[in-house]
């Protein structure tokens, strides 16, 4: 549906989008994820036509739209600020796109009614945007963007202005709506949790470059770069050096002297130094010795109660530090506290190796 080919965009000396290529399939929910200034919004604005690439080609539905004006594209956007027309009612806002397309008024009225029902705004048709709550405005913006039936819907952090609870609800509603419409959604966010919840695939951006493209599971369990490992969820990143390499496993030494066994397939063939990434929830902590490929003794330097979870800062002999997150029940049962000496186990399969930057 969308083909982005070697696209670059510069603003003066700053390269906002650096040689990005990306394919989005029809009916897919894809999220462009990254910290602010990573280029995700600029890429979105090039899809909507508000920015023109300095290099590269963008095709939508097979048509080269690289230099096509926004009002000639069959693409609609939900703006971060919603950008509802303050001088128009909800009905007029939603009908604006249809009026521009010169859709006959009976047909337009029917489609507006349909979409109003879809986003549950019945009874609010004659209100002005200022008479609506944040969540309602958000739904008007959504209705206005989908009613012209674009081939692609672009969403620029549309949930960022909502409170946490409403945001959670809207995430589920958006996903359901996207499936119902079968429309291609390109969603921009800096919120990794939001990305993991809704997306079919996630494109992680950093400093204008596409770091990794994959499903939520792939991105989470198989990060390909240190940035992705650190940005999606949480990760302990341990600088390591290769000692020996076997058929299925490799032996590495991490800073501080501890030795670990990692899967040989994980270690890049061409380097001797890399980063070992391990998720805090994959660190097994117990007062009794644990069954694991990698077992160490550690001291708990800090314990942080976080409700359902307990967060432990561990220190190993040699000074290596690691953060572990354990379910609180076990913490209660075994009562691990700051100062305790514990056993810590790391499964080989949970150790992901990423290249140094």
């Amino acid at each position, binding site marked *: 549906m969308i083909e982005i080919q070697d696209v670059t965009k510069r603003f003066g000396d700053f390269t906002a989008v650096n040689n990005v290529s990306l394919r989005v399939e029809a009916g897919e929910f894809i999220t462009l994820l990254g910290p602010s200034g990573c280029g995700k919004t600029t890429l979105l604005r090039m899809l909507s036509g508000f920015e023109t690439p300095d290099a590269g080609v963008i095709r939508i539905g097979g048509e080269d739209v690289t230099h096509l*004006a926004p009002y000639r594209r069959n693409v609609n956007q939900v*703006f971060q600020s919603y*950008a509802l027309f*303050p*001088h128009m009612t909800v009905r007029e806002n939603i009908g604006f796109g249809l009026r521009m397309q010169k859709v006959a008024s009976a047909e337009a009225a029917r489609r507006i009614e349909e979409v109003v029902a879809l986003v549950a705004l019945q009874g609010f048709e004659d209100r002005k945007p200022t008479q609506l709550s944040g969540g309602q405005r958000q739904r008007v913006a959504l209705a206005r*963007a989908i009613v012209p039936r674009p081939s692609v819907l672009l969403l620029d952090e549309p949930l960022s202005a909502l409170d946490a609870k409403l945001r959670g609800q809207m995430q589920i509603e958006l996903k359901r709506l996207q499936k119902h419409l079968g429309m291609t959604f390109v969603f921009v966010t800096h919120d990794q949790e939001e990305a993991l919840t809704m997306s079919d695939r996630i494109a992680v951006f950093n400093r204008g470059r596409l770091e990794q493209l994959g499903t939520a599971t792939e991105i989470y369990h198989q990060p390909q770069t240190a940035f992705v490992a650190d940005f999606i969820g949480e990760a302990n990143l341990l600088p390591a050096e290769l000692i020996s390499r076997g058929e299925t496993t490799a032996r590495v030494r991490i800073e501080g002297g501890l030795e670990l066994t990692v899967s040989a397939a994980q270690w890049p063939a061409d380097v001797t130094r890399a980063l070992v990434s391990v998720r805090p929830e994959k660190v097994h902590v117990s007062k009794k010795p644990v069954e694991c490929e990698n077992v160490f003794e550690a001291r708990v330097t800090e314990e942080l109660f976080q409700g359902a979870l307990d967060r432990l800062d561990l220190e190993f002999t040699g000074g290596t530090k690691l953060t572990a997150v354990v379910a609180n029940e076990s913490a209660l049962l075994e009562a691990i506290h700051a100062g305790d000496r514990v056993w810590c186990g790391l499964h080989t399969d949970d150790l992901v190796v990423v290249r140094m930057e």
Partner: protein
Amino acid sequence: MQALPSDLSDSPHAKRPRVWGWVLLAPMIAWLALFVIVPMGILFVYSFCSRDDLGRVVFEFTWDNYRRVFDPIYLAVLGRSVGYAALTTALCVMLGYPVAWFIARQREEVRNRLLLLVMIPFWTSFLIRTYAWITILKSEGLLNGFLLSAKVIPAPLEILYTPAAVVIGLVYAYLPFMILPIYGSAEKLDNALVDAAHDLGAGPVRAFSEVIVPLTWPGIAAGVLLVFVPAIGMFAITDLMGGAKVPMIGNVIQNQFFKARNWPFGAALGVVFTMMFIFAYALLQRRGARHSQS
């Protein structure tokens, strides 16, 4: 941003500012009462009086002055004045809107510098600037000199002391009064709204007429008022640049007071004139309210 006024009145401190508001407004109210309301009252009373042979006001009730206002001669002058002022206002909107829009879309430092340029003419006396225009427009002036030497025209253009010169002078004098209020509205307009209009399929013309104009309407209305009202009563420019050949209502009123020494008739002209403005203003307000109500 449109919710702001109601937000304020909902606040628990809304009562105190109201009392203080009146205290702070008192000097201005006193000023307006003394120098606007009272003179208007005097004018109103005079407009029903007559004059003696020496031009003194005689307090004897008469409708004669008003009857004379509607004499075809004066109606023609009034019509011409309205026409010139309307043309001036239209030209100011056409020239001023793009300028205001352009300035409003710049970065802040650039914006402030450009606004300064708009206001610089006010640093020089209005009369001096009008004389400068005379040296530009007269038959052996700068414009003709340039066009002749560039061989664009075979003979000097006669612009000065024609209606065209009057309109040029009026547009020049009042353009900043159109630019500034439109700028005020345009600067507040969220760019995302224009983007949204384009995104939904509105080309430049539709986006302008459907979104930009309605949302900058308060600025346009203020600009129209600020240009049309003084332009219709202007007499200095018509005297200097029109060579008193195309008298406007302002000239007629001025003449009644200073040359013909017929204060009651001048007053009647002034009253009719003021009524017209109030009517026009009410009309604009109603239009504006329809556009910007929230």
